[in-house]
């Protein structure tokens, strides 16, 4: 059950230095007086899928949003501690948040394509970040991104149609293509399948499996089965605490903590 390459110690994965993509150190998050994340220390592996699970309101989304500083946009929200991506603290004052968000893409629960054409949805990011210098280059990026998102076959004959006209599952893959188009290193997904049917969900999960070759993925999900299917590491949060973090296989066969066990086996209040 224990993989010698991932020498977990005491349930917590231990990564060799070069495998760490994101290192979170003593992270605390407050909304006004409310202490939403409590002293979380967590390392996330490169080219892996890490799942955040836990009951509603335990802070999964809050913690996920720390990784691309999305919480900065919420007035009453205060983040303390350090989050390093490739050993660089993203809360450092000299850091360019716009560049950070290009490196760390995000996909949300409800597919949210812009009210524009399929093409423009994907081309928007590369355009504003100046990633493409010619029209041909931009077209190339749109095509590759749609292909990587597994959507190209379904939409290549109607790129000028509105993105909002696609099915829910297609819209979510469009949002993934949009995230990929700016060549991020990390993709954050907040319950990306909760509005999708089982087939569309399976397609996204298949896509996640492929994407992890090139990206580091962090996914919040309230489907335990989904966490078990797609992730290599799982972190269980409860009331703002990181209760348990480990190999997904260990979490779902033999969790160390009773709270984790109660939650994943459906014994939670």
């Amino acid at each position, binding site marked *: 059950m224990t993989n010698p390459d991932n020498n977990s110690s005491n349930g917590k994965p231990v990564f060799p230095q070069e495998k760490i993509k994101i290192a979170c150190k003593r992270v605390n998050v407050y909304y006004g007086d409310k202490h939403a994340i409590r002293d979380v220390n967590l390392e996330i592996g490169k080219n892996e899928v890490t799942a955040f699970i836990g009951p509603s309101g335990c802070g999964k989304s809050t913690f996920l949003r720390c990784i691309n500083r999305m919480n900065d946009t919420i007035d009453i929200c205060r983040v303390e501690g350090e989050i390093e991506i490739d050993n660089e603290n993203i809360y450092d004052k000299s850091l360019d948040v716009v560049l950070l968000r290009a490196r760390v893409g995000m996909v949300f629960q409800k597919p949210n394509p812009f009210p524009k054409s399929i093409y423009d949805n994907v081309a928007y990011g590369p355009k504003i970040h100046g990633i493409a210098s010619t029209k041909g280059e931009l077209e190339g990026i749109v095509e590759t991104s749609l292909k990587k998102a597994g959507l190209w076959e379904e939409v290549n004959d109607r790129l000028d149609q509105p993105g909002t006209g696609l099915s829910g599952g297609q819209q979510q893959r469009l949002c993934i293509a949009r995230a990929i188009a700016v060549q991020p290193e990390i993709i954050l997904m907040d319950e990306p399948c909760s509005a999708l049917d089982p087939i569309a969900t399976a397609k996204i999960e298949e896509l996640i499996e492929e994407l992890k070759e090139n990206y580091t993925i962090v996914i919040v999900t309230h489907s*335990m089965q989904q966490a078990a299917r797609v992730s290599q590491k799982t972190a269980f949060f409860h009331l703002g605490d990181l209760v348990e973090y480990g190999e997904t296989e260990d979490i779902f*066969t033999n969790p160390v903590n009773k709270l984790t066990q109660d939650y994943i086996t459906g014994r939670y209040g």
Partner: protein
Amino acid sequence: MSDEHTVKSFDGEINRLNDVIIEMASLTKEQVRDAVTVVVKRDSELAGEIIEKDPAINNLELESHELTMRLLALRQPVAIDLRNIVVSIKISSDLERIGDYAANVAKRALVLNQLPPVKQARTIKNMGRVTYDLLKDVIDAYEHQDVKKALDVWHRDEEVDDMYTSIFRELLTYMMEDTHNITACTHLLFIARNLERIGDHATNIAEDIHFMIKGKPPTGRRPMGDVDGEFDIFDH
């Protein structure tokens, strides 16, 4: 499994599975006890009863498998629930094998009862008692989720193996002394071998209980699953 699931019917199904295993276990335990009695007391009637009861154990195994399939398909169990269910599959198949060995002892005893008594039948009595105690304790350990007791059984299996080895030697000498004893002693040898196998399956169950509760197999020196190669003439 102390706490209840939010979905109560899940508890109902898991409890039902555990009840079937326990029912199977107590039936198997009786079969082993009676099989030893048959040999010691030369009770052919009881032997017939054992052989008749064996299919009931097989049916319970099938029932446990149906419950298991249902739980896996409908509940997608994880962690302790998953281990409990997977271990049920293994334990039910160990119990089913133990039942077969008990029936086999009864069948050989029927043949023995047609032959003049040999005094070595008494040595089977001891080995039978030790094997029965092992089985009884491991079943207790399962019912009460008692890791300590399971580990104790796990360590005690060697005792049965040692007894088997010494009975083997004793019977061999006896057969060499007087060739008239060969038929009876051969049957006794097979009976001793069956008891030794029952001990092995009880040990498997002990390991499974440990895995179910602790999430890992017992550590330390693994008792020999089998007796020495030189005595392995009955396998295959």
